[in-house]
């Protein structure tokens, strides 16, 4: 309904910040920040030029490293007044360029917000600053028999503020949920520098569910200054079944059969043969290298519960055509099974100079189609792809292998990735399951959402940040950008995959 929209609607064009006066910004920030917490020399800014998506780089104008919420609020107030864009940043492990700096903007680093403020074993919650690492929360809670359930692969390094911004998942989210299911309250600052609390230490809060809305909002609605997370009792025991299959489609059907049997595994992961071959030489997890695909299926709970569930899993997987089944005999073996899966990304890094990780989610039943299509794309683009897959929830991570030093390979890898994302949407899924849109997948948002839907997103942003200063240019493409992308992408008057029904 573009024709009915007034010109004043947010999101028509990219905002222009080229008029920002660098000297005035530095002067204003220096007034509210202690010495040593403001960076603006080129060499100091360089480490902030990218996040985990190193293909996109931009040196920021200024980096501010506040130590208190009050300082962060002053920074935001000053930037609001001077109309300077602000990009909040945690550990910088994000994979979609969500923390890519703005050339005329300030990077607001929360790296100094590292305190666990409260850990309450009775209320089963931890109140932490946003720069606390995901794994550090579980480590601190361990002595109470508790842990923080979401476990993204980067959990050693990634911070909880970033987890909120991306609504991070992990390998256990089919049973234990995503970040949004495990956070009780987020305290933050609006772009105007006002303190705001979303959610509460009760299980809900009055009014609209703004707590859900800020999860996955990629730092575009508010800056997180404190997070209260739910702690979960640590299961007494976990055991893992490793099943091998001669065919990826049979493995996909086995996943469906497990769910159909009424089992919700604690983790359910699939790797294809190129992926197992890549990791086996790296970690020696004992994977069956003859298998076209392997499934890792985990049960956790009380010892009674686990032994009952493992037997049910084994029966279903056997009936589904598994060629080999192994059950972890002890904790060491269970960890070995998982070590391979968790090493998939580093293994890809050993196989190839560079790799490009995709993140689409599709209905599980379309897995076979997707994998076949990816095989076709490998030929089309002349690049290899290895597949690891959160099978339980349909979230795929194809890793496209390329060498950025070979002319044209990066472009081909990006086109390959874009093809996978477009197909994810066409198969009834989404372009990103847990890594976020950031700058990386912003063009594919034009395929997944209509003009009216994208305009709604801009209005939602404006409700929190009327001047559009928080992380501008990310996650939601402007009408103008989509129009440009559409011109490039509709080939011979046809959308990609015209044979598929759009939903």
């Amino acid at each position: 309904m573009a024709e009915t929209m007034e010109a004043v609607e947010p999101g028509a064009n990219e905002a222009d910040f080229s008029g920002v006066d660098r000297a005035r910004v530095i002067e204003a920030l220096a007034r509210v920040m202690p010495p040593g917490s403001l960076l603006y020399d080129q060499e100091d800014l360089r480490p902030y030029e990218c996040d985990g998506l190193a293909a996109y780089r931009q040196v920021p104008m200024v980096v501010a490293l506040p130590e208190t919420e009050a300082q962060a609020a002053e920074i935001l107030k000053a930037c609001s007044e001077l109309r300077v864009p602000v990009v909040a940043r945690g550990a910088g492990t994000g994979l979609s360029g969500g923390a890519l700096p703005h050339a005329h903007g300030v990077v607001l680093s929360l790296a100094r917000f590292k305190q666990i403020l409260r850990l309450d074993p009775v209320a089963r919650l931890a109140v932490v600053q946003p720069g606390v690492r995901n794994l550090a929360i579980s480590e601190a809670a361990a002595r109470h028999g508790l842990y923080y359930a979401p476990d993204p692969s980067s959990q050693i390094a990634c911070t909880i503020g970033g987890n909120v911004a991306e609504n991070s998942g992990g390998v256990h989210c089919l049973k234990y949920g995503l970040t949004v299911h495990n956070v009780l309250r987020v305290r933050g600052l609006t772009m105007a520098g006002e303190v705001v609390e979303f959610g509460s230490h009760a299980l809900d809060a009055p009014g609209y569910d703004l707590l859900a809305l800020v999860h996955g909002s990629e730092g575009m609605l508010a800056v997180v200054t404190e997070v209260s997370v739910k702690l979960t009792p640590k299961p007494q025991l976990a055991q893992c079944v490793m099943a091998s299959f001669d065919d990826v489609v049979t493995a996909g059907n086995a996943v469906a059969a497990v769910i159909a049997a009424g089992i919700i595994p604690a983790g359910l992961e699939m790797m294809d043969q190129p992926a197992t071959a890549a990791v086996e030489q790296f970690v020696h997890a004992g994977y069956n290298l003859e298998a076209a695909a392997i499934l890792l299926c985990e049960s956790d709970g009380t010892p009674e519960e686990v032994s009952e569930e493992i037997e049910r899993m084994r029966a279903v997987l056997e009936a589904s055509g598994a060629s080999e089944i192994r059950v972890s005999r002890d904790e060491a073996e269970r960890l070995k099974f998982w070590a391979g899966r968790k090493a998939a990304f580093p293994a890809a890094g050993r196989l190839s100079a560079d790799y490009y990780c995709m993140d689409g989610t599709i209905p599980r039943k379309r897995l076979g189609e997707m994998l076949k299509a990816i095989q076709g794309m490998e030929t089309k683009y002349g690049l290899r792809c290895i597949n690891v897959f959160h099978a339980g929830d349909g979230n795929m991570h194809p890793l496209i292998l390329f060498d950025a030093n070979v002319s044209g390979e990066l472009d081909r890898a990006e086109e390959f990735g874009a093809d996978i994302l477009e197909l994810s949407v066409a198969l009834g899924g989404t372009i990103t399951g847990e890594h976020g849109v950031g700058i990386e997948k912003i063009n594919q948002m034009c395929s997944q959402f209509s003009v009216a839907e994208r305009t709604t997103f801009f209005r939602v942003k404006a409700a929190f940040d009327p001047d559009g200063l928080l992380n501008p240019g990310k996650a939601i493409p402007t009408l103008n950008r989509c129009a440009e992308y559409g011109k490039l992408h509709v080939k011979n008057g046809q959308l990609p995959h015209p044979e598929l029904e759009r939903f």
Partner: protein
Amino acid sequence: MDGTIAGWVEQIRQAGAEGAALEIRGGGSKRFYGQAPQGKLLDTRGYSGVVAYEPTELVITARSGTPLDELEAVLAEKGQFLAFEPPHFGAATIGGSVAAGLSGPRRQAVGAARDFLLGVQVIDGRGELLTFGGQVMKNVAGYDVARLMCGSLGTLAVLAEVSLKVLPQPVAEASLRFEMDQATALRRLNEWGGQPLPISASFWCQGVLTVRLSGARAAVEAASSRLGGEILEGGEGGALWLAVREQQHPFFAGETPLWRLSLPSDAPVLALAGEAAVEWGGAERWLRATAAASEIRAAASAAGGHATLFRGGDKAAGVFQPLAGPLATIHKRLKQSFDPAAVFGRGRLYPDL
């Protein structure tokens, strides 16, 4: 566009042009909840039926006017259910259940309605048909507008379709009964909550605590012998949880105003006059009391939570805990952005939304 949807779009655009209000209503089972509905009726019951359901995907998509009974029967045939156990309170529809955002006894263990909502198709106050979220469990493309609809009481948009995550029904369940006062019950519930026990519901009322265990047969048996208590035999356990969910338990009878206090689970027994009941491991407290709203709200706030005048009483003091500061501003702007002519649910949640 479907004819029913086209009719709604027309009705919405006309109401917007005339400055009129619309009451979005499904089964009308929760009309008592919130402030009195205003405006002409937009009846969702004509837009009914399950659109897609594949048990192995753990997702069901249904039109908003689908009766909750009907949807639950479809799931039960495949041994699955809506794990957040929404109350029916009569002829509820799935759209109304999502819009009200209420969850039943299992909420403490599995999450609330909002945790199971994956996607929506809505019509906003401009008459635009919009889709947010989807039918997959992990989806971070765009802001989570779908969950924003949950609990918005029809003040932002009309729900046309909803997609929900479903779960397999537990293999085994057992209910245990203990006699103890409220303070002891709260202490026990919080202790048990910190242990890997399969507790799926709890209800304390008049000196009796009942807990429900759900899960693998062996796990339920092991926990049951560990916790002790008196096992409810036959259908007694199931009947109790149904009565609690539907507020047909004797605690909920009578005309005394019913307050719902949502508190941190370890908040102490509140010093408020009136009869109390406890659910959700201590995080949901019910109160039958005639005290002033300001007194009850102050006590809930001091304990770190909020209070809702759930049924009866004088709604002039507001049904929901008032919002202030930037939160109130963000609410107003969100309302304005989805429904600029204030067509939907006028005043139902707060006077100025």
